[in-house]
């Protein structure tokens, strides 16, 4: 009987020791590190550092009214599939840039009016917008050459 009590006590002590060992306040962080490294590898593999670039353009609100502009403030450009037409003359990109620079010097608040024809390539519109940006002309108006908006 006494023997059984002693063995019982010994077993109880062992159990207590095991429990104490399990909850001794130390957490194993190695699995956390492994997870972090796995996720890190995933993000390194899948991420792309290619920045999307573009030309910002704000369309006028349908409710907005008309704006009065002076004649010497405006430069009207008709982009063509080859070159540009300004004042009825077909000019190259370099000539357009020179004209825009001169216009900008004449009038700080110059406006470029781009009149696009339906059969002209989209690339020509972007190029004209880019030319205006290169000359630091910030006010650009886009119209259809055949009339309309």
């Amino acid at each position, binding site marked *: 009987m006494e023997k059984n009590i002693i063995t019982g006590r010994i077993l109880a002590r062992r159990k207590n020791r095991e429990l104490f060992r399990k909850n001794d306040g130390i957490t194993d*962080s*190695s699995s*956390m*590190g492994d997870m*972090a*490294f796995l*996720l*890190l590898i995933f*993000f*390194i593999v*899948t*991420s*792309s*550092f*290619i*920045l*999307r*670039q*573009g*030309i*910002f*353009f*704000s*369309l*006028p*609100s*349908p409710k907005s009214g008309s704006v009065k502009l002076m004649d010497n403030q405006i430069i009207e450009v008709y982009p063509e599939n080859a070159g540009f037409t300004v004042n009825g003359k077909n000019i190259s990109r370099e000539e357009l840039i020179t004209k825009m620079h001169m216009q900008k010097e004449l009038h700080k608040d110059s406006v470029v009016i781009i009149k*696009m*024809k*339906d*059969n*002209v*390539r*989209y*690339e*020509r*519109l*972007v*190029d004209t*917008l*880019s030319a205006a*940006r*290169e000359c630091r002309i910030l006010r650009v108006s*886009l119209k*259809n050459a055949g009339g309309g*908006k």
Partner: protein
Amino acid sequence: MKIKSIASRLRPIAIGASMADMALLLLVFFMATTTTEPPKGVEVNLPRALTSGAEQDNLYITVSARGTIYFEGHIVSISELNDSLANRQREKDKTVAITADKNLNYSIISEMLSVLQDQDFLNIVFMSEPKSSREI
């Protein structure tokens, strides 16, 4: 002699906790900077221009060289684009990124712009490839 005996008793220990910290820091960096590929629908040849960085939180319209329009990666007609934009009026402050093929006729872009204007999506960005400093 005593020093030698102490040195011989020291074992090299690699502390892994700092490694985990570094990994977590790098992980946070990558999570913050990773950009997800926008829903294009089709590959296009972009025009080249003097550009500025575009925002990530955009609505995406892609137009192929044949004039097929993709809105958020799905093929749509002009009228369907109009309906889709009408259903997303809450997002009208977002920028609409137009990714169109450089050889596309302007007539399609013109139609699209009037739809965007009608639906009050006024901030747009013409996606393009940046010109190198030599080209400017």
